[in-house]
Each structure stands twice: as C-alpha cells, then as structure tokens.
C-alpha cells in the first residue's frame, strides 16, 4: 500500500512533463521531405531561409515566395476601388489597438494558397471557400460575390505576382488553381 503514496508524485511529474512539452514554443516548422514537384516546391519548397519580416526567424522558401505575392496582392486590392470595400479589415488599426488586420489576412491567405500549391507543413483550417463566401453561413458576406468581383481579384493577384517577378509558368499555375475556386466564390 505504501507504493500508492508515489501515485500523486508520478501524476504530478507526468503532468509537469506534458505541460513543459506543451509550452515549449516551436519557432520554426519542421522541414518535410520533398516528395514530387509541386508548385510550392518550384517556389523554393521547404528549404528554410531567414524571414526578412521577422529578424532571427526562419521561414520556408516556398511560403516566403507566396507571402511576398500575397502581400503585394493585398496592397493592390486595398487600392482597388472595385473590391477594396470587401477588405476594410486590412485597415484594422481602428478601434482598440487591433494591429492584426493586415498581418492576420496575410497569414491566413498565405496558408490557404500554400496548402493549395502543395505545402505540407502548413494546414489551412479556416472556412471553406464555399462557406466563406456564402452570406447564409458567413455574416461577413453581406451579399454574394459577383463574377466581376472575382475577375477583379484575379487581376489584382496577377498584378501582385508581377510585382514579385513571378515567372510566367508559375503564374499560370497559380492562376489555374485560383480559377478552380470561381464556382465556390461566385455563388450566383
């Protein structure tokens, strides 16, 4: 029966180990083994490089390439009066010192596109494109997106890609992936 007195200590030790393990912050994603050639691989894949936006941090080269395109696209969209009303959240300094609008959208969109282009180390688990653009599911959508809205988004994406000198063949691949989303985004 004396052994029983060690039980709480064992439980405590186990909990402590789990807690310490859970609290150890992972600063970098684990590089995955390259398998096949995806668009993500063509952009640099899982090779880790210094992240210019966060000194001292590393980022996968493929993700960095995509993030550069996404960030440029966000700028183009924010200055495009055809669709920028849909992206007011970018200017999220308004209110209680919420600085996250621009960076959150950049991160979210980058992860989505990274997944779509073959990234293995990042998982997009936001709303599906269909739900995100369905006013019945997503209260942020006050109306359905039109085909003209989607065309404007695509042209802004192309402009963003061109600012980053994305090679034409890769731009075509990105365009093809985005085009597959048209039916999910335009629900009219």
């Amino acid at each position, binding site marked *: *029966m004396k052994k*029983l*007195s060690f*039980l*709480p*200590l064992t*439980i*405590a030790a186990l*909990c*402590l180990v789990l*807690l310490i393990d*859970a*609290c*150890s*912050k*992972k600063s970098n994603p684990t590089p995955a083994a390259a398998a096949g050639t995806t668009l993500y691989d063509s952009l640099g894949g899982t090779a880790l490089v210094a992240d210019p*936006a*966060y*000194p001292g941090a590393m980022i996968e080269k493929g993700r960095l390439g995509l993030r550069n395109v996404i*960030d440029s696209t*966000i*700028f*183009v969209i*924010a*200055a*495009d*009066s055809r669709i*920028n*009303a*849909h*992206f*007011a*959240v*970018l*200017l*999220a*300094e*308004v*209110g*209680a*010192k919420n*600085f996250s*609008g*621009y*960076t*959150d*959208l950049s991160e*979210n*969109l980058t992860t*989505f596109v990274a997944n779509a282009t073959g990234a293995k180390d990042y998982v997009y*688990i*936001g*709303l599906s494109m269909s*739900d*995100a653009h369905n006013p019945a599911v*997503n*209260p*942020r*959508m*006050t109306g359905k997106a039109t085909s003209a809205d989607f065309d404007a988004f695509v042209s802004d994406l192309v402009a963003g890609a061109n600012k980053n000198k994305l090679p034409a063949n890769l731009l075509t691949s990105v365009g093809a992936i985005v085009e597959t989303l048209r039916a999910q985004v335009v629900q009219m």
Partner: protein
Amino acid sequence: MKTNIKKTLLWTFSVLLLLTVVLCVHIYFVYRPKAADNNSRIMARIDIKQPINQDEANKIAAWMYHQKGVDHVLVNPQTSIVVFTFAPLKTTGNQIANNFKATFNLKADRFMPTAKDMKQSCPMAASSYTYKIYKFIANII
C-alpha cells in the same frame, strides 16, 4: 488504507489545481493585449479626392518611402488611392496623412472604415471554430 486513499486524492487534486492555475496564468500571458513591437505593421490608406497622373503617383510614392516608419507603399493613379504600411512604434497613420496633406497641394483624407465596415469585410477573416481553437492552441505551444 482509507487515509492513504484520501491522501492520494488530496495530493492529486492539489497538484491538478496547481497545474490548472499555472496553465491559466500562462494562457493569460499569451493572450493578454500585446503592445506593438518592432515587427508590428499597420496598413493605412489615404484617399486623394482628385485625379492624379502617373508622374504624381511616382512622386507621392517616393515621398512616402522617405517618411519615418513607412516600409511599403502603393499609389494607384487610376483610383487616386495611397496604401502604405508603417511601424506603429515609429509613427502613426494620422501623422503621415497630415504630413502628406501639408506637403502636397491635394485634397486628401485618411480613409477610416467604420466598425460596421470592419465586421462585414473580408470573408477570409471569418474563421471556423476549428481555426479559432487551432489558433488558441498554436499560441500556447
């Protein structure tokens, strides 16, 4: 025997309570409103209320890039809109907008979306509950 079981339960409960408190404190520190740091960036927009040409757009962009704290700029001459990001530790959007108006002889205002605009914008910003839980856990680990 009974005393030992009681002791064991008491110890277990105490340890779990302590760990729960530690976890709560940890979550609080992760989620408490964070002050802006050197990596923080804010996007802002200035609407020019008159047409501009490409030359003027280039001049505006060049001037904007010389402003302290501004790191990326896009001037769209078709829409007369200036979009830029800046480091909140070095400057503010209003300061840049005011300097802009003082420097250029243009009718211009900083665009500030309303709270309603913010709630209704960007479908990608709306996240599933799974995503919210993921973000919650990801921030902890």
